[in-house]
């Protein structure tokens, strides 16, 4: 019964990532997309929260949104997997349902 959680807002502007992290259970998948991809970067104020979550949850980030915003894949937190839209579709298929933290 695993959930794919999606977060499309900046963790600095809105509470979406925080609510996602506190309402997701071990073994789930979290996809960062749109302005949510800023949470995937090293050196930010939310890096430790993301790393803590990664101990029990798998975190992904949408490649086209990272590139559009000028973020370097070299600077993404180790262990976050970058996917394209085909990968997003696969994640929606391989998990039972999707929770969009709008």
């Amino acid at each position: 019964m695993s959930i794919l959680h999606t977060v499309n807002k900046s963790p600095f502007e809105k509470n979406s990532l925080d609510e996602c992290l506190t309402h997701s259970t071990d073994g789930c998948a979290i996809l960062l997309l749109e302005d949510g991809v800023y949470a995937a970067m090293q050196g930010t104020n939310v890096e430790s929260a993301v790393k803590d979550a990664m101990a029990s949850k798998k975190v992904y980030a949408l490649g086209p949104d990272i590139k559009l915003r000028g973020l370097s894949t070299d600077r993404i937190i180790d262990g976050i997997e970058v996917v394209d839209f085909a990968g997003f579709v696969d994640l929606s298929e391989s998990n039972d349902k999707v929770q969009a933290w709008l």
Partner: protein
Amino acid sequence: MKFAIQINEGPYQHQATDTAYHFTKSALEKGHEVSRVFFYHDGVYNSSRITTPPQDDRHIVNRWAELAEAHSLDMVVCVAAAQRRGVVDDGEAERNGKDATNIHPAFRISGLGQLIEAAVEADRLMVFGD
């Protein structure tokens, strides 16, 4: 696998409809079925045929229409949300005494039951919003 898509925001203001479009296109290319795209809240604005984006920008409405044409997509605009926001087809114009319509023929206006039905029948409901 069968997907239902829900879009909560209008074109250009939020990236939600861009993301929804690319997800839908990608799912179709991978051989999945997309049983319905349901436009709710400000999402109803995605169906206006009288938009004119700058020439070097994407045409969000036509893009949806072309995808629907190529894959026989059922694109439904919520009637209650559409009335509040001025998205009108011939039937609505007549019913509400409006002197113009603006919906693109690739979309149809219907009730919220279409969203529930799509969620019941699909394997996954995907929601894109703000």
